[in-house]
Every structure is written in structure tokens, then in C-alpha cells.
């Protein structure tokens, strides 16, 4: 396809070129849809560059069983996504699914975890998947590097991890090879529904498209109301520590500690509601490091090479929002804080539905209408 042809009106405009937007855009393009991606560029908050890179199932979906099922489905589709990305781009995203652990450092923590896990699995319509509650000895047998302070753990064989920077790169290479018209430095200011399509405007000019998908992360909160949609997402700050690369001693991801394919150890999973603040703060990082060292004492001898923070994209109840506009058919919003875990679903399941033009009834639980509860008088 020539450059001039690509600049013609696309079938679908995707707003946002992070992991979520790129997954949807590639998913559409590989079905033959003409896609343009309008991406803010390097000034974007870009959780895709700061995330912890888990493909995580256990513990998700308490309060919305459909989210647990959606997550499990994506984790199961991940081997296919990784294989297809490798085939398409030659990039190995280092996807591994050896099962993951949540380690507990006190009896109270362990009991709280067990209770939460049981509540999750006791929900009506909860999807079935295996998990194990392990004491110290059994956890130690499986993870020899744990320290004496680890009381026990919960293990789920579906959990895994990936090199998320390579995932991000692979999706962009795949988009490019799939003919997606990727436009960096294209922040979107206004979107208007026009007859049979949408008009998207920014400082760069304007673009007409047949359909539109909002995948702009935290930007969706501002953009969604322009299309009769709602996406009241807010930032949730997470800080991450990464150590020097060392020989592999940890072969399974732990929800707050994982050793990457290249050998660095990431420590993460803090959560703070501080608006758009992305500064690294020592008190939180110290607590993270202290807990990680109690879990794996050998970490005390490693050099830290970087710390950073990034912003999760959080809805009020923590679950994803997938919605289609009632007033403007052809307008969709997709937002979640687990763009890595859900990438397989976004490429393989969500994009084809958007191409067809409508989300089926199974997606109703993910509609933002669930959040429209009138406040009591």
C-alpha cells in the first residue's frame, strides 16, 4: 500500500498507541481493516513502558466474575499471541507461564489472602481454575530462594510473565508491517460524530474515520464523553525497582517480585492515589525493598540499577471498561489496567468484534453503565 493510499480515510481510528491501542489496531489490521492510530507520543504517561509485565490470573475478579473469566481466557490465549508475534515480527517477547505465587509474610496476611481467594472462587458463575494454598515448607521446596519470614503462599499454574518492552515493540512492528497508519505526536483534542463516521481533530489537523476506538489510557476519561461514553478512569501510581542482571534463581513470577528473562529482578506493586505524580519516593521504595528482601534474602546483596514509577489506568471498581456508544454506533472505548495480561484478548477477541461493528451481550458487564449508580438522597 502506498503512503498516499494509507493517508486516505481509515475504516477505524484508534486513539492511543500504547499496548492496549496497539493490540486492538494490530488485531484489526490483520483482519484486513484499514486502521490509523493517533498516538500522543513520548509525552504520554505510557503505562506500557512502566508496567510490571505480569500475565496474571489469580486474585483477579473478586466482585466481577466475568473479569476473572476474561482474564483466564487471555492467559490461555497468550501462547498463541506470543507465537504469532514471533512469526510476524521475529521478536521473542519472552512469554513464560510457569505458574505464579503470592507470598505472605505473616499469618494475618496469609489468612487474608486465603479468605480473598476463597471469596473469589465462591462467586456465582466464577470460572473454574486450579490454585493451591502452600505452607512454608512446600513453598520453599518450589522456590528455594525464599526466606524464613515467608509464612506460605498461594500458587496458580495459569500465572506467567513476559518482557513487556519487547511486547510493546513487537506490537508496533506488527502494526507497521500490517499496514497500520501510525501517527505519533497526534494528540486528540476533539471528536465529533458526523454522518456515517467520525471526525477527529488535534493540533496536527483532522482525520475522518468510519469507526473509532478510544484506547487512550488515562486520556479516555476526557475523550469518552465526546462520544456519549463514560470512562471515569484515574491514575494509580506504582513504583518499581530493578536490580542488576544476575544468574537465574527465580523461575516463577511472584506478584511483587519477578526475575526477567535477561536476569534483572523487578520489585513492584506499590499502589498510591496521588493524581498524576510520577516522582519516585524513597519511603515507599524502601518498604518495597524491605518486603522483597524478607521474601528473597539474597536480594539484599544485589545492586539496584533503576527505580521508576508509572500510572495504572484505574476505573472506580478496578475492572476494565469495554463499551460501545448508544448514541453514536461505531464508537468504542477500551480501558483497563492489565493491558499486558489482556493483550491476547484484545488482539484475538476484541478487535474482530469491533471490526464486526458491535460488542455482543457478554460484554454488558464491562459497560461503564455499571458505574452509573444514583447517589442516595
Amino acid at each position, binding site marked *: 500500500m502506498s503512503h498516499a493510499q494509507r493517508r486516505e480515510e481509515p475504516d477505524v481510528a484508534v486513539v492511543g498507541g500504547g499496548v492496549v491501542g496497539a493490540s486492538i489496531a494490530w488485531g484489526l489490521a490483520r483482519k484486513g481493516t484499514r486502521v490509523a492510530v493517533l498516538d500522543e507520543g513520548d509525552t504520554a504517561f505510557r503505562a506500557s513502558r512502566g508496567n510490571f509485565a505480569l500475565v496474571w490470573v489469580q486474585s483477579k475478579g473478586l466482585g466481577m466474575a466475568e473479569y476473572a473469566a476474561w482474564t483466564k481466557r487471555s492467559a490461555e490465549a497468550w501462547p498463541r499471541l506470543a507465537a504469532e508475534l514471533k512469526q510476524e515480527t521475529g521478536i521473542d517477547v519472552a512469554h513464560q507461564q510457569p505458574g505464579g505465587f503470592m507470598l505472605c509474610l505473616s499469618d494475618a496476611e496469609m489468612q487474608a489472602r486465603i479468605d480473598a481467594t476463597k471469596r473469589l472462587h465462591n462467586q456465582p458463575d466464577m470460572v473454574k481454575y486450579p490454585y493451591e494454598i502452600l505452607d512454608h515448607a512446600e513453598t520453599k521446596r518450589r522456590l*528455594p530462594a525464599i526466606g524464613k519470614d515467608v509464612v506460605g503462599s498461594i500458587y496458580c499454574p495459569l500465572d506467567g510473565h513476559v518482557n513487556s518492552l519487547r511486547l510493546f515493540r513487537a506490537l508496533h512492528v506488527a502494526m507497521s508491517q500490517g499496514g497500520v497508519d501510525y501517527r505519533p505526536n497526534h494528540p486528540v483534542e476533539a471528536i465529533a460524530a458526523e454522518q456515517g463516521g467520525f471526525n477527529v481533530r488535534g493540533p496536527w489537523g483532522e482525520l475522518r474515520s468510519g469507526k473509532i476506538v478510544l484506547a487512550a489510557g488515562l486520556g479516555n476519561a476526557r475523550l469518552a464523553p465526546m462520544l456519549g461514553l463514560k470512562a471515569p478512569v484515574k491514575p494509580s501510581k506504582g513504583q518499581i525497582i530493578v536490580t542488576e542482571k544476575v544468574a537465574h534463581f527465580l523461575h516463577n513470577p511472584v506478584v511483587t517480585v519477578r526475575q526477567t528473562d*535477561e536476569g534483572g529482578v523487578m520489585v513492584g506493586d506499590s499502589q498510591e492515589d496521588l493524581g498524576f505524580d510520577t516522582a519516585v519516593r524513597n519511603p515507599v521504595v524502601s518498604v518495597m525493598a524491605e518486603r522483597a528482601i524478607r521474601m528473597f534474602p539474597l536480594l539484599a*546483596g544485589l*545492586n539496584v540499577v533503576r527505580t521508576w514509577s508509572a500510572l495504572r489506568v484505574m476505573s472506580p471498581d478496578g475492572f476494565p471498561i469495554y463499551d460501545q456508544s448508544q448514541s453514536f454506533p461505531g464508537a468504542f472505548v477500551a480501558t483497563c489496567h492489565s493491558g499486558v495480561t489482556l493483550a491476547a484478548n484484545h488482539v484475538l477477541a476484541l478487535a474482530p468484534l469491533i471490526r464486526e461493528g458491535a460488542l455482543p451481550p457478554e460484554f454488558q458487564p464491562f459497560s461503564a453503565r455499571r458505574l452509573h449508580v444514583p447517589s442516595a438522597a
Partner: protein
Amino acid sequence: MFRRLHDVEGKPVTFTVDGRSATARAGDTVSAALLANGVEVCRTTPVSGAPRAPYCMMGVCFECLVTIDGNGNRQGCLIAIEEGMLVETQKGARAVAVDGRAGAGA
């Protein structure tokens, strides 16, 4: 590749590199001592296995990593050589000890 300047003084210091005895001068950094002894590859990288040697000699580039007295990933260019020091070149990722046992090298 490297020859010492004639006007730099320093008492001889004996150390070990990869099990061989070697001599440096007091005041040498570990990296300088290795280069003066003809050790031009101090490590291979953990990801690609490519050979590496000290580059910036001032603590910035992290290419000079070696194992010193059993501790891996030490910056040779920032540490002064000492009598009896055990220096090892590194193959791949730094080994770590799990549960008291020696960690496997890469």
C-alpha cells in the same frame, strides 16, 4: 596493548586473576591492574554473551564488571587493587547464592 608510564611510582601488589598470580602497583584500580596484566576481556554479557572490557574507566559505563573476592558485578575501575585480592573475570550473569548454596553461573 598497554604499557605503564615510567614516571608513575607505586609499591608492588600481588593479587590473583582467574587463579593466576599477578602483580600490580599500589594505587592501581582493579581494571588498570587487569589491563596492565594483559587481561583485555573482563566479562561476557548476560544477554548476548559478547565480550566486554573496561571502557570509561570512571564509573559510568559499567563495562568493567568483574568478580572480586567472590562478589560479582563489581566495578573494577572504581575499586583499588589490594594485596591478596581474588579477581575473577565474569562469564555471563553474576552468580548468586540461593539458600547458602552457590548459585549457578549463567
